[in-house]
């Protein structure tokens, strides 16, 4: 199959980087300079002691492009580890959204009812507005925002996707918190 005819896949990639100035610019510059897509990118320090940040990127491309993205990320000097969560197995993706909806009358009641269904919390309220806090997968957030938009004027702030693999394996463990349990020594051989 020609590379151009390959199917487009969406992948969620987790990258462990040194938390140093310019590291995000390197990652973003890599994507823009080489023409890769970024659908979502989130970053936050996850290990203050060792100054490590975790970047979660949702990107799309042909399998060849996805492989390229991972190889290109991995050869950046401040990158410690790259994991393709989509490829490596089941994983969890979540976003947080703050949704402000401005409306009056029955629409306010309907908004609250829908928020309840979505398990969104009202964290701010005036007589003509609510701010809802909602977490969940991207599609759930999209659906909620669509419904709110039908009920009034809406302003949205979203975090983008954070993700982690299911199961007991730690792909990128925090080094400092790892407890090293020494195995009990085997009994000394009888002299």
């Amino acid at each position, binding site marked *: 199959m020609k590379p151009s005819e390959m199917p487009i896949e969406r992948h969620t990639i987790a990258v462990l980087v040194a938390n140093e100035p310019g590291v995000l610019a390197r990652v973003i510059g890599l994507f823009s300079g080489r023409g890769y897509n970024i659908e979502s990118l989130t970053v936050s320090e996850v290990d203050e002691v060792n*100054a490590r940040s975790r970047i979660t990127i949702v990107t799309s491309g042909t399998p060849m492009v996805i492989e390229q993205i991972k190889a290109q990320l991995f050869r950046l*000097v401040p990158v410690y580890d790259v994991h393709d969560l989509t490829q490596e197995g089941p994983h969890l993706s979540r976003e947080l959204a703050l949704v402000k909806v401005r409306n009056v009358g029955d629409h306010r009641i309907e908004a609250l009812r829908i928020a309840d269904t979505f398990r969104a919390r009202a964290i701010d309220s005036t007589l003509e507005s609510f701010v809802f806090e909602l977490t969940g997968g991207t599609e759930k957030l999209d659906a909620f925002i669509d419904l709110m938009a039908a009920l009034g004027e809406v302003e949205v702030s979203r975090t983008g996707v954070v993700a982690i693999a299911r199961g007991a394996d730690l792909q990128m463990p925090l080094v400092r918190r790892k407890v090293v349990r020494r195995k009990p020594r085997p009994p000394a051989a009888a002299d």
Partner: protein
Amino acid sequence: MAQPRSSNPRRPAAPTTMSGAAIILKALQDQGVEVVFGYPGGAVLPIYDELFKTNAVRHILVRHEQAAVHAAEGYARSTGKVGVVLVTSGPGATNAVTGLTDALMDSIPIVCLTGQVPTHLIGNDAFQEADTTGITRPCTKHNYLVREPGQLARVMHEAFYVASHGRPGPVVIDLPKDILFADCPYIEASEVETKSYRPQVKGDTTAIERAVELIAKAKRPIFYGGGGLINAGPKASKLFTEFVHKTGYPATLTLMGLGAIPATDDRFLGMLGMHGTYEANWAMHECDVMVCIGARFDDRVTGRLSDFSPNAKKIHVDIDASSINKNVPVDIPIVGDAGVVLEQMLAVWKAKGYQADQAALSKWWKRIEGWRSRKCLAYRPSPDVILPQHAIRRLYEKTRGMDCYITTEVGQHQMWAAQYFGFDEPNRWMTSGGLGTMGYGFPAAMGVQIAHPEALVIDIAGEASFLMNIQELSTMKQYDLPVKAFIINNQWMGMVRQWQELIHGGRYSESYSAALPDFVKVAEAFGGVGLRATKMSELDDVIDEMIATPRTVVADILVKQDENCFPMIPSGAAHHEMLLGPEDQAERRTSEEGMVLV
């Protein structure tokens, strides 16, 4: 930001401190740096003061920062060491950008120190301020802005590690002026450990076994080597040649790989690609197993991808995983150092007692000899006008057996040099392959000559390219560098004109080198020697005199103006659609898809 590793028992209780500038000089010495190419300015004065006081490292004062980087590239490419550059903030750094990009594209290890305004002024649009780390981020392998005195020594050592390990490349260290005055602790290179960048050197054993088995069973194999062989050190070239001989298979090299197998070796089919030989490109197209080592399936090499080597199983050895499966999907990828992997491959070949399939191989060679018999590089020397190919051929013949290094500029002369000058060893050929930087060759030759003072260093140039860094004649004079500029002067930007003929109906828009200076007088004005050959009868004498003159020489070789570079795969065409000469060109038109390609 790295944390101090307080638990290290080897760490002395109180590290010695010295000024930032002194730290830089000490780190350069500890890294074995002998020479720095640079240009001073306000932001780097403390380093220059330290150079003056300690005299620890030799400094070569160039006449333009771009030339400093190219000189360091020439130095690095001809020695295998890291080239070092020192320039000031703002324009010093921005002038270096072309050189840095060139080094990135051709994987040349460079450490470039740039001055910066003091930390408290960064972001204030201060005099000679530029966002150097921002500007150079996409054109370096890595860059640093040193904001804390405590980081300086570590960054210096790490920069050399990053520049020279894995796929080599340029590294910039941006140095605010206050850091150069600040008291900084010194730490030894041995105490600096880079945890995140750990390139894989040894190839995967299983993949290598599969690859060698595939190589052994091949009926129509070809070795395709590139610049990675040169970067992996002379041993890699030896092993490559050994593997080629052990198997008896044909080999071709990219522009960057020339010299990895001797040009005189009868297994060598010549360079491949856009201006490669007929036999090399046809063998690539018809092969059943392709062994690519240290090359990257560049567009100049592959031609139209959809018809690139359609029936071959491909093995790709590269130290940079991102080069694999980038343009061409391969069957057996092997990440590792070219030299190390070749050693592993040879060990497997010997251990398993593999033998090439002689019957198939002799059939394959018969076909190759058929392509070879087309003699794609043949030309008819004219009795009076100098043909550019002939000028380079004569230069090659007259320098054979000498300790000779060749650099080039970019254009037709570059391709003719690659075609008609034979290289029997690695590190003898310096050219701007990936970026195609006009103005590269002359300063690069300067760097080569600094590294090899006794050698014959020749820049095969075009008259247009030579004008792009002609000011370095002044540097040559200052350091008495006997570099030779051998100008193939056709009074055209020849490659531009060739493409205008090919795809723009011969409308020569701005490609004529009008108002050329008298290069002989220019050479003399700068304190060098100028020579000129205008007809065939003068060519040999001028070459002889140029070689014999122990000074900077500019040899202006006036050649046939309308000669074009063949063979050629026009852009958008495939390996089996080569043009052998101008007769072919008239018959075929470039496809519309090809016209938009560069």
